[in-house]
């Protein structure tokens, strides 16, 4: 009945949604922020440790939500490892295009970890699930405590 849904709920998403590798608070961190989707109740918090040069050294998160939002957060951690704040924002812009349209003509190779979420554009009400952790991460980098995917 649901085989066509495997484009969204593919093996990577199911694996990362259920057994995220990075879903934990960092013992030592420089930045943190929460993200809320007030319409559905999803909530995420990210913690970021910066390297001396200001790049992202480590990211951890806690999430309450669906498989999509947890998998997106988990994959995001890998996509942004070692990136500067500016690179991270560019990556988010590219990921948002991917999530909304399924297209990403000039996607950097850095976005490769997020590609398992490409099919989310076929489910417009779920795009915010995938972008919520990114909103929280950008808020953390900008020194804001809270964000929303609305």
């Amino acid at each position, binding site marked *: 009945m649901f085989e066509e*849904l495997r484009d969204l709920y593919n093996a990577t998403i199911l694996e990362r949604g259920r057994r995220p590798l990075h879903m934990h608070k960092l013992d030592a961190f420089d930045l943190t922020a929460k993200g809320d989707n007030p319409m559905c*109740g999803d909530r995420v918090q990210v913690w970021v440790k910066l390297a001396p040069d200001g790049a992202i050294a480590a990211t951890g998160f806690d999430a309450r939500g669906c498989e999509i939002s947890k998998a997106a957060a988990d994959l995001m951690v890998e996509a942004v490892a070692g990136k500067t704040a500016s690179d991270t924002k560019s990556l988010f812009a590219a990921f948002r295009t991917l999530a909304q349209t399924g297209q990403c003509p000039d996607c950097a190779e850095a976005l490769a970890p997020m590609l398992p979420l490409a099919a989310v554009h076929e489910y417009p009400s779920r795009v915010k699930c995938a972008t919520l952790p990114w909103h929280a991460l950008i808020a953390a980098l900008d020194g804001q405590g809270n964000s929303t995917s609305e």
Partner: protein
Amino acid sequence: MNDAAAFDLAAIRAQFPILSQKIRGKDLVFLDSAASAQKPRAVIDAMVGAMETQYANIHRGLHWMSERTTEAYEGARDAAARLLNAADRSEIVFVRNSTEAINLVAHSYGRGIMKPGQAVVISAMEHHSNIVPWQMLRDAHGTELRVAPITDAGELDMAAYEALFADGKVGLVAITHMSNVLGSYTPAERIVQIAHAHGAKVLLDGSQAIVHRRIDVRALDADFYVFTGHKLYGPTGIGVLYGKRALLDAMPPWMGGGDMISSVSYEKSTWAQVPHKFEAGTPAILEGIGLKAAIDWVEAIGYPAIAAHEAALTDHALARLSAVEGLTVIGRAQDRGGVVSFTLDRAHAHDIATLLDRNGVAVRAGHHCAEPLMRRLGLESTARASFGIYTTPAEIDVLADTLIKVREFFK
């Protein structure tokens, strides 16, 4: 089941054009009526007909079109008064929705009549629309906000409710008549009796209840009763605040503007009589006409038949859903209506909703605008199936059968 025997479900469904829509090639199984109900042909035709043949602004025109439109719009007030068994049509105030009705009472009765230090009692199963206006009143006016707890079954804890009145500070109770999450009815008569015995007024939020049960505000002795048109098979943008005439007379206006005045000068304006005192500006004319059509339509079918149909559906849903492995029905109130919330062990509510949608089944998933209730239940979110007059047992079977496959998908 005499009433149910007279209830021709196929004929009712045929009056809802949208029910013949296909969703990705599948029959639409619309189980989200508690969020907003679909509209019967009678409502659609009344609104389109008004626009095509009989439309002008109301209450002010001296021409034929305005007079006819005023008549049609004011007919909605008569219909609503009859629906609620109000003592007088002037006790029906038109608003946009239940949220606006509650805000009107919170502003006008709350700030105008209640004194700082008095308390407002709500319950632990309120929609945000019956929480936030009272928080705003508390913060602006110095009233207190008290929350009557619920039991684990999802029923109002009546002993704890009564105990909230002990210090004599409660001035107003604002409680749902039926939970939009748990489907529980609250014992409205008893709620009112206890409140009145302690000198407090009562607002009942009937947004869900009025869809499923006959409401008699005089039998309940409710001081205020609110509902919204779009859940009762009517249009969006129109709702009703019922208030006892003496209370409405004593309350100051909330919004100022045209239609709500008796006279205006720069020094002083005087107010129109109720209900117009609370109806500033051009109202939702077409929506009022649509609401009248919806009320007439519901009353023609009759609440006994509606209630019997929905009770049977709810029993069937509870039986079928409870039999789905890994599924937990949230709330087990004795007196409940056609709203069933549930969780599934292997899937988050949003994922459930996305999969159900692929099979044409529309449910709501999330916190249902009742975050404090979710916290009380220890849940983040639930999926919710809610039933309307057009829902069939076969649709509930599609839901249950699909949920079994959802669970397999996430194994």
